């Protein structure tokens, strides 16, 4: 079943150059779809458009068959709880003035009336935060600390915990490991793989790291200068039919 479908999406910033140029793809439920491209090719812009924190110029975004690209904030509310995002830089994604527990509770506090949690259960705020931290393999006492007291890998785990706290359908992972060291990268990727299975999530995994994308994704898309230039399933990665640019990316790794 198609969870997310994007059709002829266009997005430009003031300069007139298209950051996202006529992009179309589909993401199936339960799937991890990889999106590879070099820095500045429009990957993050696409993520922001999908999450509707950036307005699109033209084209459509269908979530569960509903065109949401022109929805107002009020209309979007039920979709917000099914779509979450994890950004590249966890330091910017956590409010430095708030304790970890106060950042973690944000999504649940907004959607608690509408959601039935399947995997987690909410009895008290403290118990809920503890469950979330356990799910991302962090010690409980982190809840009362501030972001600057945590390492980069720990912070990224916190943002992942926040994203899964309302058990969304889809998580957009915008270079979730790019700012981490190699060991944390592997650990976070393993965690993401595991969470996808236990929570039955779908991922759109955006990265410039073909190896990481290859590890997680069933299908891979390649983006260059705002355009989608190649699309294939993982076992076709080394096929002769690949686009020259894809071959170039493979040769780097």
């Amino acid at each position: 079943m198609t969870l997310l479908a994007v059709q002829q999406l266009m997005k430009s910033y003031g300069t007139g150059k298209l950051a996202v140029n006529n992009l179309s793809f589909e993401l199936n439920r339960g799937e991890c779809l990889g999106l590879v491209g070099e820095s500045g090719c429009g990957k993050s812009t696409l993520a922001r458009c999908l999450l509707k924190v950036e307005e699109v110029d033209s084209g459509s975004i269908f979530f569960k068959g509903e065109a949401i690209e022109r929805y107002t904030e009020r209309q979007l509310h039920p979709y917000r709880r099914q779509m979450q995002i994890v950004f590249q830089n966890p330091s910017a994604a956590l409010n430095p003035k708030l304790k970890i527990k106060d950042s973690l509770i944000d999504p649940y506090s907004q959607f608690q009336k509408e959601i039935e949690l399947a995997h987690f259960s909410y009895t008290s705020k403290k118990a809920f935060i503890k469950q979330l931290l356990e799910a991302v393999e962090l010690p409980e006492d982190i809840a009362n600390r501030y972001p600057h007291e945590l390492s980069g890998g720990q912070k990224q785990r916190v943002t992942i915990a926040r994203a899964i706290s309302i058990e969304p359908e889809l998580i957009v992972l915008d270079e979730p490991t790019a700012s981490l060291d190699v060991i944390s990268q592997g650990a976070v990727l393993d965690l993401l793989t595991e969470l996808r299975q236990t929570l039955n999530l779908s991922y759109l995994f955006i990265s410039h790291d073909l190896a990481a994308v290859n590890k997680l994704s069933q299908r891979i898309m390649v983006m260059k200068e705002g355009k989608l230039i190649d699309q294939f399933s993982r076992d076709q990665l080394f096929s002769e039919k690949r686009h020259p640019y894809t071959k170039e990316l493979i040769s780097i790794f």
Partner: protein
Amino acid sequence: MKDFSIPLSKKNKHSWQGAVAFVVVAAALAGAIYTFFYLRYDPTLTNMGGRLQGMSMEHPLGTDHLGRDVLTRLFLGGQQTIGYSFLALLAALMIGVPFGLVSGYKRGWVDRMFMRIADGFLAFPDTIVAIVLSGLLGPGIGNLVLAIVMVKWVSYARLVRSSVLSESQKEYVLIARTNGLSSKKIMVKHLFPHIAGHVLVLASLDLGKIILLISSLSYIGLGAQPPTPEWGAMLNDSRPYFQSMPSLMIYPGLAIVIVVLLTNMMGDYLRDRFDVKKEVQS
């Protein structure tokens, strides 16, 4: 290896001043509270038989030209001057902070409209506004406070707006939006903690200026009206006795100097404490 840490002496340059300022302000406040509960003399009761007395056991700082106890009036004057300054400051904050938050977060036409309104208020110097308001509504401390609020709220709105403008581009604000938080909740929970320190510092630096403004405008008769004990008004009252009894002018004058100096020291201390030198220029 080169040591990049900030030398202790530089970092704590103002801390002793801050401590002194806090202690003296606290003592003055305690004194003011004391006189409020235990008044030895009615501050407005005239006693023409005992006018212009020097220091004595009954009147530690003597009496003024109408025989009123100077010390009592000085403390009550402190309540007036500092109290109304706080009132003006608080009102300016209550208007300026939400105004700046909304302006900086909403951007677009809301921001443009709000900032043009602020510019309009900024076009008039505070003294002029006070004089015009007194002319229109009659002199009085209430109108003076109103005039100060009208001028001062703009600087808070601008400070808050500029902080919010840069802060609201950060990813945690975007995530708060994707988590379904309303604009109001984002402003209160996520953005306000970032501006609170800056606002506190600017407010403490402004307090001294407002005290001076209230005193000086009361001195020229636009603020507190006699017989209300207010430092500026007391200065004005004792002007004719400048040569025969200079102490009458020295006490309220000294009180103003000390309080303004202390609030400025407190402001400097808070500025160092919150490390916001770049954002807030005194």
